[in-house]
């Protein structure tokens, strides 16, 4: 019985009963560098503000059922707030309603949740980030030439926004640039490489390629290397060793990176504000940066990049 009492006491002091508030974060994954950085940022902010976090996510970004189970288990702990990056908004709706009935505020992050329940959404403005990539490519090409897009998919919100943000900026600001029909490689490195080589073969006058996430960018880098072209302006998204190396070697012009550490920090900040009942904006944009060989060593950029 002593065991029960002490175990209960320990958990109780950290749970919703008092003491440090507990924020349960259910992400879209946990192994990838990106999510590990979100976790890092969340832990840093929680430590600074006197809160506790737990961080879980499914093994793959298609495992909706596992994520639903994880959210169920987190709700069983009655945390003070939930941070949630939905793989499928609809599948999670009953659980969000449960959170609401338990008076647990939900903060959406990474991508929006299609529901009224989250108090706010902490995410990167993908359209604006893609527009920044377009701006740098147009500048490098002197406002003229033919560019191609290798996008990770045409169904997810991030895929659509990173495609449309790039294309819209080009249409509005760079009349001299022709944008080819976007191609989709599923974020798969090999498939994106194959797509890249065939685009280069079909368009000998190609001047630039834009890749919409890390997997696509690695594919584009390999495809360009295989084709032997060294005069293309290659612009990527996110980070990772392959892109960093490609920028170092001059094969890649630069890339736009989200700031996952900042996302984690803002997520915990928003969750704590929600616990305190503070008013919050509907959307909280997290930082993103353009990085290339010139600014890659800035401390601020370094903090946002992962190997």
């Amino acid at each position, binding site marked *: 019985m002593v065991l029960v009492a002490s175990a209960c006491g320990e*958990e109780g002091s950290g749970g919703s009963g008092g003491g440090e508030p507990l924020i349960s974060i259910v992400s879209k994954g946990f192994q990838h560098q990106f999510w590990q950085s979100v976790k890092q940022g969340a832990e840093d902010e929680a430590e600074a503000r006197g809160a506790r976090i737990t961080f879980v996510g499914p093994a*793959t970004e298609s495992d909706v*059922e596992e994520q639903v189970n994880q959210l169920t288990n987190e709700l069983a702990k009655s945390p003070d707030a939930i941070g949630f990056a939905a793989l*499928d908004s609809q*599948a999670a709706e009953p659980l969000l309603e449960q959170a609401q009935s338990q008076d647990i505020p939900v903060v959406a992050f990474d991508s929006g949740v299609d529901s009224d329940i989250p108090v706010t959404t902490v995410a990167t403005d993908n359209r604006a980030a893609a527009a920044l990539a377009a701006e740098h490519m147009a500048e490098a090409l002197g406002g003229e030439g033919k560019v191609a897009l290798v996008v990770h998919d045409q169904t997810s919100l991030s895929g659509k926004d990173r495609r449309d943000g790039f294309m819209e900026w080009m249409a509005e600001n760079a009349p001299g640039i022709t944008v080819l029909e976007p191609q989709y490689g599923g974020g798969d490195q090999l498939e994106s490489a194959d797509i890249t080589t065939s685009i280069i073969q079909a368009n000998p006058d190609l001047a630039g390629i834009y890749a919409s996430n890390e997997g696509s960018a690695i594919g584009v880098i390999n495809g360009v290397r295989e084709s032997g072209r060294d005069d293309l302006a290659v612009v990527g998204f996110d980070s990772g060793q392959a892109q960093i190396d490609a920028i170092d070697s001059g094969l890649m012009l630069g890339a736009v990176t989200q700031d996952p550490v900042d996302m984690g920090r803002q997520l915990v900040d928003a969750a704590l504000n929600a616990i305190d009942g503070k008013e919050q904006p509907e959307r909280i944009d997290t930082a993103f940066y353009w990085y290339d060989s010139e600014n890659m060593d800035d401390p601020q950029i370094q903090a946002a990049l992962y190997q």
Partner: protein
Amino acid sequence: MTVLKSEADRRRPWWEGVTLAALRSRLQQLLAFASLIVIYTFFAFASPYFFTYDNFISILYSTVVIGTLAVGTTFVIISAGIDLSIGTGMALCAVMSGVFIVNAGLPPALGVPLTVLFGGFMGLVNGINVAVLRVPPFIATLAMMLVAEGLALVVSDSTPIYFNDVSGYTGISTGHLVPGLDIPNAVLVLLAVSALSGLLLTKTVLGRYTYSIGSNEEATALSGVNVRRWKIAIYAFAGLFIGLAGVLISARLGSAQPATGMGYELQAIAAVVIGGTSLSGGKGSIVGTLIGALIISVLNNGLQIMSIPQEWQNVILGCVILVAVYADRVRRGEP
């Protein structure tokens, strides 16, 4: 003659004749059950949030999909086969349910049985490949796993199919048929099909030949049984569970997710093995499989509620599987 004797032994239901000898032959199943109780008790003491009725229901609910797949695949594994196509096959069946019910507008009362039959058809193809074309089960079902993974994406155009406008479809999983008990229907479905499967395995000719083929295929053939036909039947029967799992997962999520399912086959096989079914065939039970599936869910749930880092959760799960397989070897080594 030894085949016949042990066969008669296995046909006995688990509760019958709880003598010392019977207990020994059920050693591992007992071991599995004891482990389940120990693990459950441990978590109940370790966290104040674990031992509640709501959480008990959550654990049962999270067992449904893996449990359904595992019950079906128990038949295949007892017959000394293996089915790797159940995970992505389930995703394909979920998509087919969407095609039947959302795209073609069939009522669920028709679309659901069609989906289950579609799973049976996939199993039938597996069975023909294994029994008639003599492709080793590992390869035949590996091929089916890839075919199903691809077809699920092709048929759905790589986008989830939502059952928003189909009234009652999500109720198959999330509804409560028994008022007051708060048990989701999907759990009742799992319990019902498990009871039925247990009876089929212990009381019918299908079950008898499943054990018999698994323990000695040659002797079974020599005794005049059409092994080829029965193998096809076993795979096709197990396929029905792939279809059912496809219905249950899509009803729970309110959508058919075409890219999901990879890895479910390994979890289902793990549940079967933890439950004491021998991968070399001839031994096993449905109760054991259910216990195995529950052990996995209880571990997943309890470790998460204790806020154990997720990386370690997999390490612990892996160790449990190792222990279970080791216990299986020890048991088989016994005279």
